[in-house]
């Protein structure tokens, strides 16, 4: 995996491990839990964008599928939490294949367009299927996670649960990136035509990565549902899809660490902007544009450039 990555991973795990002991109050813990949940989605998106070179404009839909499966199936149909979770994964994978297979065979960015359509349709479905999803008023009473009698309801426990899963998925992702598969993905990003000529089945890879990214989002969605115990359609709409996209982009599309940084920044930022009632979207837009224009390679690269510049002085 590379010494750099192992070291960063180690430091990250230690920091996360001791984090709950250094803060007071559930608010900061919740923020970190949200960052963890977003980090999971964004890891998957990073693989899709940074490696397969595709954008998804509707990824919140997969978040929603995971969340609503984990919500609806236990609440309305008495499924166990784990079965519901697996159903979410399964449904997300099927839907992802349904979109990806026809569109990724086409040259160009048709997947982006199809995901836009898909995301919106799913949002409308969440809103309209009143009996099942509760419609615009949402679904409440989602059970919290428990296994072997151990219940994950409290802030600290959920924090460790979410971040444990996030770290495991991060290790998985890094392993993939530094493997034959990761090389193939990077090759696709580098030169599709050469990758194909060297035997890489480009379409198939793109489809696989898209499905994988959908699975990550589904996991995140389920974790979200069991945390808040209440879900409603706006959480899984276009705005969120764009937000997720921005997390990857401002972090620096190609690096998974950048994506995590982006997740951190864009989860915290809206919280700060809440204070500026009328300005929030404006400031948000200005910050996004500024980053895209002045740090087109993302904040991670931008920061390293700044750090190098400081070192020179």
């Amino acid at each position, binding site marked *: 995996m590379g010494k750099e990555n192992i070291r960063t991973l180690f430091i990250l795990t230690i920091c996360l491990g001791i984090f709950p002991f250094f803060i007071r109050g559930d608010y900061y813990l919740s923020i970190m839990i949200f960052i963890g949940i977003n980090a999971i989605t964004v890891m998957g998106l990073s693989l899709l964008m940074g490696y397969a070179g595709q954008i998804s404009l509707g990824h919140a839909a997969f978040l929603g599928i995971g969340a609503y499966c984990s919500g609806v199936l236990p609440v309305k149909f008495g499924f166990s939490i784990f079965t519901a979770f697996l159903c979410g994964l399964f449904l997300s994978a099927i839907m992802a294949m349904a979109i990806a297979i026809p569109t990724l065979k086409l040259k160009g960015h048709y997947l982006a367009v199809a995901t836009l359509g898909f995301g919106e349709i799913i949002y409308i479905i969440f809103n309209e299927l009143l009996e099942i999803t509760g419609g615009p008023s949402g679904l409440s009473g989602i059970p919290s996670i428990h296994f072997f009698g151990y219940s994950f309801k409290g802030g600290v426990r959920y924090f460790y649960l979410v971040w444990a899963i996030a770290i495991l998925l991060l290790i998985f992702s890094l392993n993939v990136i530094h*493997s*034959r598969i990761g090389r193939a993905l*990077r*090759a696709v990003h*580098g*030169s599709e*035509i050469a990758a*194909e000529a060297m035997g*890489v089945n480009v379409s198939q890879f793109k489809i696989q990565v898209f499905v994988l990214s959908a699975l990550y989002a589904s996991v995140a969605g389920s974790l979200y549902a069991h945390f808040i115990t209440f879900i409603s359609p706006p959480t899984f709409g276009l705005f969120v899809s764009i937000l997720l996209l921005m997390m990857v982009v401002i972090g620096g599309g190609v690096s998974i660490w950048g994506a995590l940084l982006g997740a951190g920044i864009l989860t915290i930022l809206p919280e700060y902007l809440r204070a500026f009632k009328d300005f929030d979207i404006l400031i948000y837009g200005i910050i996004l544009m500024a980053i895209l224009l002045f740090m087109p390679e993302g904040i991670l690269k931008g920061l390293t450039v700044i750090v190098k510049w400081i070192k020179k002085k």
Partner: protein
Amino acid sequence: MDKEKIVTPPILETSRLRKTFGGLMVIVDLSFTVMSGQIKAIIGPNGAGKTTLFNIITGILPPTKGTIQFKGKEINGEKPHCIAQKGISRTFQTVELFGNMTVLENVMLGRHIRTKMGLIQSGLRLPGVRSEERFISETAKEKLDLVGLMQKANEPASGLPLGEQKLLEVARALATDPQLILLDEPAAGLNETEILRMAEIIRKIRDRGITVLLVEHHMDLIMGISDEIVVLNYGLKIAEGTPEEVKKDQKVIDAYLGVEIEYA
């Protein structure tokens, strides 16, 4: 007693190959063969359809009519990655390296079709993955060594000068263990020393039993290393034969602006 002549089938055979773009016929009823172990060159003025021919053989474009047979089986209409699997590899006229990877990683990608660890196994870093990676790395290094780029293994591929980029593409193409390698203008943009180096490497490739089909403009290189030459003009084959035969062919001389092919 007469030794029975074993007739080996050609490794590559095109039969009345035709390609039209809109109203323009770029390749016209082209039939030629490539024998196993040969170095065969395709020459012709610009626009003669040479790169299009390569793109058709490797599956990037479908032929409008006609067939291509590789080791006796038809491959027209197959996708590029399938054709690579079957044993045909190539380099590109405008270098298509993976700029986002190192020199070694570019060659390692060549091993992709000869290895099999999948997504799940790689993600979980199962035992087989580690040994496969080592094997990939070693084979890749061997190819790099062949073209003489070992010392630059960990540098970013985009940082190499053009001559070395072309060599890297050759190393990458070799890593797929092809039986036939298509070189698209390997000498374009190279200086004299680099061309000699490239010629040397092409000979080494042939010595390993790999058949070479190349498109080239550089006459010295062509005449020096080819066993046979096919001459195209406006998509039509106007001559095929040994360098000696082709050099004297009147039609070839006419096509190249009426100047007898001179070389130092």
